């Protein structure tokens, strides 16, 4: 399938999704589903995941599995906090970036130079990240230290000397804020779209813009530059690359360091949001980022979708636990659609195999159950609300993962001149 057709399909898909969601919103009356607030929150929660995911993408496209993202992210948060309170947000940005990059460098040394199993090295870095930062806090933020006077504790840094600037779209989502007024009308579809757009454009942190720009940038660099071609060749067939005079070691080093830098950037963003380093604030986002990346089939667009899914579900869940129940209805509808498609594809009942019948039967039952739940349950126990993003991810994977294709030499130990 050509790129343009894919692109169009994507657009159609998005449109359909919005329509469906708007419909759900109308039926259930759960305005939060498409409110600007939810989408603002979604964006905020998605960015660190997306950045971590980009980190994963850069490493794995070059053939290095990086589950050390979490540890690198932690390094990013600490150094961002440490530099931020002394020299402001831009210093924080640089420091966090570098810290993450150094984490990446360690990973590169272990995996590329010494050929250590990538998972092992990653696990070690996930141990080191929190250990080192905790240690630094215990040294630099202890009672009586200057930082401590400035409000630091073992578990937190002082606040950044100044916050990172935030931007809005003039007129549309600021000042007269037309989108805002449109949203408040709550008209079907229009109100929804307005809400979504406003959420994504109102008081957006500069780093968010930076992060979002990283997606097309990554795509361009990896798929449209010679450096990108070499990088991906290191992930597909490093020996071929080597035989053409590509310095695979160097490529992998660069890729993994960049990967770490992205993870660090994710950490920086967390610090920007909380205006200071808070121990444990990454809360496993490195892993989620990795998941989003695999979810997205090792492609920037896909990982953006994965991150968005997480951010959205998480934000919605935090803003309105009730609204989550309307996903039950969504699920039911999706199942019915699936049913229809499947039935139409099979020409005549005669052509249906047992497998088809079981699948469709399951779909029917599932739809019924979900619908019934939606009618009866008005509020799920919080524990079940909290896991929405994770369950959604699993479901999507169950449907989509057949088409996933990871780089051929991903995770493979490459040694110069030793192909077999």
């Amino acid at each position, binding site marked *: 399938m050509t790129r343009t057709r894919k692109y169009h399909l994507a657009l159609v898909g998005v449109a359909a999704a919005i329509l469906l969601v708007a419909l759900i919103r109308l039926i259930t009356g759960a305005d939060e589903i498409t409110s600007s607030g939810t989408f603002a929150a979604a964006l905020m929660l998605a960015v660190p995941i997306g950045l971590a995911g980009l980190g994963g993408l850069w490493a794995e496209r070059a053939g290095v599995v990086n*589950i050390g993202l979490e540890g690198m992210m932690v390094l990013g948060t600490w150094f961002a906090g440490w530099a931020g309170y002394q020299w402001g947000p831009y210093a924080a940005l640089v420091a966090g970036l570098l810290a993450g990059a150094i984490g990446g460098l*360690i990973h590169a040394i*272990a995996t590329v130079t*010494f*050929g*250590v*199993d990538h*998972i*092992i*090295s990653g*696990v*070690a*870095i*996930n*141990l*080191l990240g*929190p*250990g*080192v930062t*905790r*240690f630094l806090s*215990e*040294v630099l933020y202890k009672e009586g230290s200057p930082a401590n006077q400035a409000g630091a504790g073992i578990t937190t840094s002082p606040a950044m000397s100044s916050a990172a600037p935030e931007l809005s779209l003039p007129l549309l989502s600021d000042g007269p804020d037309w989108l805002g007024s449109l949203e408040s009308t709550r008209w079907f579809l229009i109100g929804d779209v307005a809400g979504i757009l406003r959420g994504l454009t109102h008081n957006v942190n500069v780093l968010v813009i930076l992060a979002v720009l990283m997606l097309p940038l990554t795509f361009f660099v990896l798929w449209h530059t010679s450096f990108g071609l070499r990088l991906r060749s290191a992930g597909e067939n490093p020996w071929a690359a080597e035989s053409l005079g590509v310095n695979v070691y160097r490529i992998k080093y660069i890729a993994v360091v960049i990967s770490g830098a992205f993870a660090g950037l994710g950490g920086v963003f967390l610090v920007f949001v909380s205006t200071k380093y808070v121990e444990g604030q990454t809360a*496993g986002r490195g*892993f*989620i980022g*990795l*998941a989003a990346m*695999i*979810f997205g089939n090792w492609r920037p667009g896909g990982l953006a979708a994965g991150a968005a899914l997480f951010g959205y579900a998480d934000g919605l869940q935090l803003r309105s636990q009730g609204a989550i129940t309307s996903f039950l209805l969504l699920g039911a509808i999706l199942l019915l659609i699936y049913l229809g498609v499947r039935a139409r594809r099979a020409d005549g009942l005669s052509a249906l195999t047992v497998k088809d019948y079981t699948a469709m039967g399951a779909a029917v039952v599932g739809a019924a159950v979900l619908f019934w739940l939606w009618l009866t349950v008005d509020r799920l*126990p919080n*524990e*079940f609300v*909290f*896991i929405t993003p*994770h*369950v959604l*991810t*699993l479901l999507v*994977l*169950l449907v989509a*993962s*057949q088409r*996933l294709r990871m780089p051929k030499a991903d995770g493979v130990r490459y040694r110069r001149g030793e192909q077999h």
Partner: protein
Amino acid sequence: MPAGLFRALLTVAGAVAAIVLAIGISSVAIVAVGASPADAFAAFLNFGATEKAVSTSIADMLNRAVTLFIAGLAVAIGFRMNLFNIGVEGQYRIAAICAAFVGSTFVAPAPIQITVIIIVAAAAGGLYALIPAVMKVTRGVNEVISTIMLNYIAINLAAFLVRGPFAGERAEGQLTTSTPVLPESAWFPNVNALLEMFGLPAPRGDGLWGFLIVAILLGVGIWLVLERTRFGFEVKASGLNAPAALASGVDPKRMVISAMVLSGAVAGLIGLPEILGDEHAFGSNFTPGLGFLGIAVALLGRNKPAGIAVAALLFGFLDRAQGPLQFADVPPSVITIMQGTIVLLVVIANEITSRIALRREERRAAQALGRNTPVEVAA
């Protein structure tokens, strides 16, 4: 010298060198704090003034090692065939709460009661691991991410169960939630006798967890299964070369399912030493994170039971120093740093040594092929 022995010796040498290096690195950190490394390492070795304190410390260390050992085993089974079961974390949590609850619902003679609990734990862990396994074989879902997702789900599920269906009644004003306390018959007798054999007094508190015995048996069992049985061979084959395994009649789906479930079943036991030997219930204080530590331990032990045991003891030894280090005014986070560096350096050492061993292997092979004169070998 036989290749096997040579490889073993080389590995040990490498590990020792790595640990020494790690100690060096952490010494730098300690100096940076302004504390003296000497004090710090004294703290690591300071098991207490009185005999009682010493035996208590030893018990603490061993108890920690036991759980880590089981965790390492669980992880290793999957990793043996390149099946990255990151989900041990969730599996042992689910298993622990189910076992703790079921165990509290009936009273039977100790052996039966404890056996039932162990079986329930293994079953629960295995079943929870079955989910990613089935997702992988039927829909090709990458187990790394499905298990990561399932970890979060497990945490929430456990939280729901312990406060809802499985909640035990609590004293007024008690803020911890937990499953009903297990009957005495489910309390695993301690094995302080082992320590007493070495002329040490019985340790304080719950003493040396009797589950140590189970863990040892488990380790031997797993070793036998992995190294000596047809199943173990098929696991190894699948791990080393999946297409070859397939071509030689190993059913990959069956392997994924069985390895994953076995891994999960072992994972199910991780929480039991604590529950049967100490807490006697699953509650708010249940130790988290063992699944992730298990990965480090397993990899440190090269996915082999013996190695895992050593790694677990090392981690137990380091973790025990949490308190003593603080008495010596050394930030305890040094422990984590050491653990991280050791893991990293030891595996690097492994790489180097195994490469040396391989070269030696090839040399001997080539000599057998008689393609070269001694002079040139010397060169």
